């Protein structure tokens, strides 16, 4: 699998394709981008993830050339792109609304950028056909945008933005307008096309699942700042802040004070409760405020007290049945509610637990991540 060996961000000799250097963007009093530095490498599928208004779209529009940084510099292949207008950048964008030209056919939409380059007819013809084939749109080439479905439109937009073979392709919420089922299929298609063309993709999305599925690396943003930039598995397994842990997937957060011995930490979290045990590479001072983040699927639920570094007793408050798994909301005597997930390997009638049952929750000392912010 190339994905496993593909990690240019870990190679200090690798030159980034895009480099944001202390970039700030303000609109009047509002700071949309706050002192961001970020490197994106060639052939990456890079996701900018965050809630709406976090600045991810602004960041992308600066790459496209529709916005200019208030402070700082952006380099594309080592060149400062500030003075380069959008139409001269080797960057193309796929718009959230697709922005297909309604007066042109699918074919002409895809050919639009190529014609502007002044290529000869045969070259354009060949390239457009290639794009049509790539996106499986051959049959629709003479239709107008309003005569095709949403998914087809999305593929036209993709084909159009890829036609010029840009160094960098920007995708603004590319799947936002599709329904859930189509979205999933398209996600894989996107990855496929990205691998086939070898183009660097930067995708903007607010959908964490989408980001996790398609991206080689994910940047989680909040209020104009980068919260964490890492591979999807590391973002999930080792979030470095409560914000990221909470934004990506489901998580239990327990606040407490740290008592560290080597890489073992005792988290003092509630009166009259034994401390929680966790391992960490970080250094915590005595009684430093800390947060233990544990994914629900890492919390085991049992009727008998199990042998484990962390065991807590509680009562089942609620059960969310999701088909393949069930999430149990367990209330501790302290009032905390902890979520635990179990795979439903047995039939619903034979489920072990039900509402109001007294149960034991347990997890290992490596299951959780101890966070200092």
């Amino acid at each position, binding site marked *: 699998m190339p994905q496993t060996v593909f990690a240019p961000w870990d190679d200090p000799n690798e030159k980034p394709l895009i480099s944001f250097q202390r970039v700030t963007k303000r609109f009047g009093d509002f700071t949309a981008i706050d002192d961001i530095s970020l490197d994106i490498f060639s052939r990456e599928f890079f996701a900018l993830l965050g809630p709406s208004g976090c600045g991810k779209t602004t960041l992308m529009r600066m790459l496209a050339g529709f916005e200019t940084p208030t402070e700082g510099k952006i380099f594309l292949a080592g060149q400062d792109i500030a003075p380069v*207008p959008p*139409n001269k950048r080797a960057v193309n964008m796929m718009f959230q609304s697709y*922005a297909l*030209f309604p*007066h042109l056919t699918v074919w002409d939409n895809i050919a*639009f*950028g190529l014609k*502007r380059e002044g290529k000869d007819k045969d070259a354009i013809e060949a390239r457009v056909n290639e794009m049509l084939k790539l996106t499986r749109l051959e049959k629709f080439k003479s239709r107008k945008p*309003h005569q095709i479905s949403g998914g087809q439109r999305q593929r036209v937009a993709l084909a*159009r933005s890829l036609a010029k073979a840009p160094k960098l392709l920007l995708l603004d919420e590319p799947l936002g307008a599709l329904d859930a089922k189509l979205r999933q299929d398209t996600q894989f298609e996107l990855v496929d096309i990205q691998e086939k063309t070898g183009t660097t993709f930067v995708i903007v999305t607010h959908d964490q699942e989408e980001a996790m599925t398609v991206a080689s690396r994910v940047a989680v943003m909040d209020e104009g700042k980068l919260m964490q930039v890492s591979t999807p598995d590391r973002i999930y397994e080792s979030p470095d802040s409560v914000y990221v842990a909470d934004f990506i997937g489901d998580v239990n957060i327990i606040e407490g004070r740290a008592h560290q011995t080597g890489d073992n930490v005792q988290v003092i979290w509630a009166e009259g409760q034994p401390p929680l045990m966790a391992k960490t590479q970080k250094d915590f001072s005595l009684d430093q405020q800390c947060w233990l983040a544990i994914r629900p699927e890492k919390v085991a639920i049992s009727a008998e007290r199990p042998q484990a570094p962390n065991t807590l007793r509680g009562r089942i408050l609620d059960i969310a049945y999701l088909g393949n798994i069930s999430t149990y909301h367990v209330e501790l005597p302290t009032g905390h509610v902890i979520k635990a997930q179990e795979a439903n390997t047995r039939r619903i009638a034979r489920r072990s637990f039900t509402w109001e049952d007294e149960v034991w929750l347990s997890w290992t000392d490596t299951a959780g991540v101890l966070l200092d912010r």
Partner: protein
Amino acid sequence: MRRLVLILVPYLWLLCLFLIPFVIVMKISLSDVALSIPPYTPQLDLSAGWQGIRDFFAELDFENFAFLTTDDLYWKAYLSSLQIAAISTVLTLLVGFPIAYAMAQSPDEWRPTLMMLVILPFWTSFLIRVYSWMGILANEGVLNQVLLWLGIIDSPLQILNTKTAVYIGIVYTYLPFMILPIYAALERLDGSLLEAAEDLGCSRISAFWLVTVPLSKNGVIAGCFLVFIPAVGEFVIPSLLGGSKTLMIGKVLWEEFFSNRDWPVASAVAVILLLILVIPIVLFQRQEQKQREAEGT
């Protein structure tokens, strides 16, 4: 029943405001001039019964239409009207498009005000507005005085009573009819289309030609028809602002009707004018229909 009524209303409208007057005018155009009240013959005499109706129809003929072909005045006047209307339409477009474009580009909160300003002149009588242009364009008028004062010209420009003044008058009067449909088209234009065009390698100017212009085409066409059609038959503007050299069919019609008292020939002129206008109107309707189909709703 409700449907029937809904369908009937526009047809009734068409019948009362177009078809009946047209039939009357058509009938007069087939009559002969006479010194009587009203000044043409035959009159439909229903008291004479069936025979009266037969006599009436027997006396109608196309003599007046034949007469129109005997004198080059008429086709010259039609051509000249079409030419003046066409030039005025192009000028109105050249003035109106940038205004509509600027309106569509302006911040949202300004738009109602700008729209208001475009419509505002309608609150004054059309005649008063045209008369005030006489005051502006006259040799001793405001425009010449300002230009003289600025030292741009040495002697007053003769604008009033020339074709130029007619063009100014038509452009001024019909400008809102050009601006509004174009503005409506431009306002609907998705800004991201222009960004997409730029992103794909267009300069601002080529994006304008390749995206803005084709997408505002329907507005432009609607605006052009709204200006062209009434401009062809225009009478007031050329008679107030134009010189005696400005030959327009409206003026010829007026003379047939008022100076020659020849209602039948005047009606024939009007019928032909209508036919000339029906062609662009039909084209316009076709275009509209095509647009509706294209939008696929």
